[in-house]
């Protein structure tokens, strides 16, 4: 009798310890990055592009990377939304409930979700050689669009699956076509869509392996789709590779910027999804 209580106590202690470890790792990571990054962070970092000798420790900032990342994520959002929104509407509200096509599409996106970003990068690169595009903003947009599409589709699909069938049924019985019904449903699913967008932005903005091949790197802000574009993760990576201490410090500062952006995105995604759940119940 006593033995089983002791065993329970031992394992419960282990469980609590490992839970605490996981939470502390998160704080340790964020703490380290902020602690190292904040002192080197100043307004120049955010508002200036790298000057001459930036990688030797001279003046400048990472505005090129911030703007590059923004351009790429905006472009890939447009492509991602254009594909995943109709797709989710189609498999949820056009196809019958137990459709094999819907199952197959969901399954293939589950697998696409697992494909590592370096493979998307290599594929994007091969595609660009085939089309004759050089490393450019456009290349980066295509690679990141491929990367975020599965995330966007899956998380939007989760919400769409939960929507009560009453609404589409009511719309159809009032004589709406499926297309008109879809327009109403999208409005209803808006919070879910926002969550999906925030999650994809978080993943897309932080990825380095996919843009390494495809977007290239530059000290300037790209003015057209054909020009190479810098990205924040790559700028962190390259600055950290420098032997100069000041440049390394700026890598930490850039890492702090990226971490703060991700924190905000992740927390607001959770806020929107919880708000949606509240409305539902």
């Amino acid at each position, binding site marked *: 009798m006593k033995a089983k209580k002791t065993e329970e106590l031992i394992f419960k202690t282990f469980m609590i310890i490992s839970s605490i470890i996981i939470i502390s790792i998160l704080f340790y990571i964020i703490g380290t990055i902020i602690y190292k990054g904040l002192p080197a962070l100043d307004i120049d970092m955010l508002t200036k592009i790298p000057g001459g000798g930036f990688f030797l420790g001279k003046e400048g900032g990472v505005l090129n990377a911030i703007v590059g990342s923004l351009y790429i994520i905006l472009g890939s959002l447009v492509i991602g939304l254009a594909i995943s929104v109709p797709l989710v509407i189609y498999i949820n509200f056009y196809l019958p409930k137990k459709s094999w096509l819907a199952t197959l599409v969901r399954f*293939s996106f589950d697998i696409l979700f697992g494909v590592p970003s370096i493979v998307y990068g290599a594929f994007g690169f091969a595609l660009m050689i085939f089309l004759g595009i050089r490393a450019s903003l456009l290349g980066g947009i295509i690679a990141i669009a491929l990367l975020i599409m599965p995330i966007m589709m899956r998380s939007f699909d989760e919400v769409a699956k939960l929507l009560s069938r009453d609404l589409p049924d009511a719309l159809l019985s009032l004589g709406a076509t499926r297309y008109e019904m879809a327009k109403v449903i999208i409005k209803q699913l808006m919070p879910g869509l926002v969550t999906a967008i925030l999650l994809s932005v978080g993943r897309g903005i932080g990825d380095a*392996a996919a843009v390494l091949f495809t977007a290239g790197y530059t000290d300037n802000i790209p003015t057209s789709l054909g020009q190479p574009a810098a990205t924040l993760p790559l700028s962190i990576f390259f600055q950290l590779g420098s032997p100069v201490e000041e440049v390394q410090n700026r890598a930490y500062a850039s890492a702090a910027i990226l971490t703060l952006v991700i924190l905000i995105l992740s927390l607001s995604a959770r806020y929107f999804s919880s708000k949606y759940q509240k409305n539902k119940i």
Partner: protein
Amino acid sequence: MRYIRVVKDRTARHLMLGIALFSLLLLLVIGITLLFKALPIMREKSLGTLLTSGNWKPFKGDFGFYPFIISTLYVSAIAIIIALPLSLLTSIYLNTYATKGIRKIFEPVIDLLSGIPPVIYGVWGSLAIVPLIAEKISPHFVEFSSGYSVLAGGLVLAIMILPLLVSILTEVFRSIPKEMTDASLAMGATKWQTVKKVILRKSLTGIIAAIVLSVSRAFGETIAVLMVCGNIPLIPKSVFDACYPLPALIANNYGEMMSMPGYESALMLGAFLLFFIILIFNAVSRLTLNQIENRYSL
């Protein structure tokens, strides 16, 4: 008026069907493209030689993938050995013991851990893990280690796959019907006995699927590993030696790869291998997990 509405509806329907079919083809297109790019090197040498040779001398035309494959396996094995007990214990705790409040605290923690970009894990690894290994851990075992090592890669990867493991395991445990655990508890079993005899036993396939899925995630992780592994194309002798996983190899050489014959093709073969193995791992584990999800829900 009525006619236009119907035409719009029809067009939209066909367009959507087109998108659905296109998206199904995407996996196939990625696979075929990479394979097509890898063909030149496979014509020169047999796949067997490429995979088992330890010689990586692109300048001489030697492309042996063995050190990279071994490195990838090493770091992923260390990652799962560290991450599995932690995530099992945590998800059992969240599922069986934790109050609703504690679960609520954990959700954003897992969200954030999985949201932190790989490059940040890499920066953190080189700031925290690498010096820890170089100064504190390795002196007890070997004469010298720079810290950029198999162990550093494994540790960083372990943390990176933690959120995935915890969230899948929690799902798996949640799929077990409450009647089963209630029955066990009603017979006088303690919570831990119920966990051991009912929950763990019932979810064994789910746990294995979760492991396979997170190992495949570890296989493909690039930037973070690249930043802490040291990247020397030799077979590591101990966990304190540098290693060079396959994704890091691909990422590190993208600039040079255009200039040498066979080089680009060899790297594309690397990408194809990654894609193919991860595809299989993902397909198997997703199928298993989907089955588990459907088993108890009617």
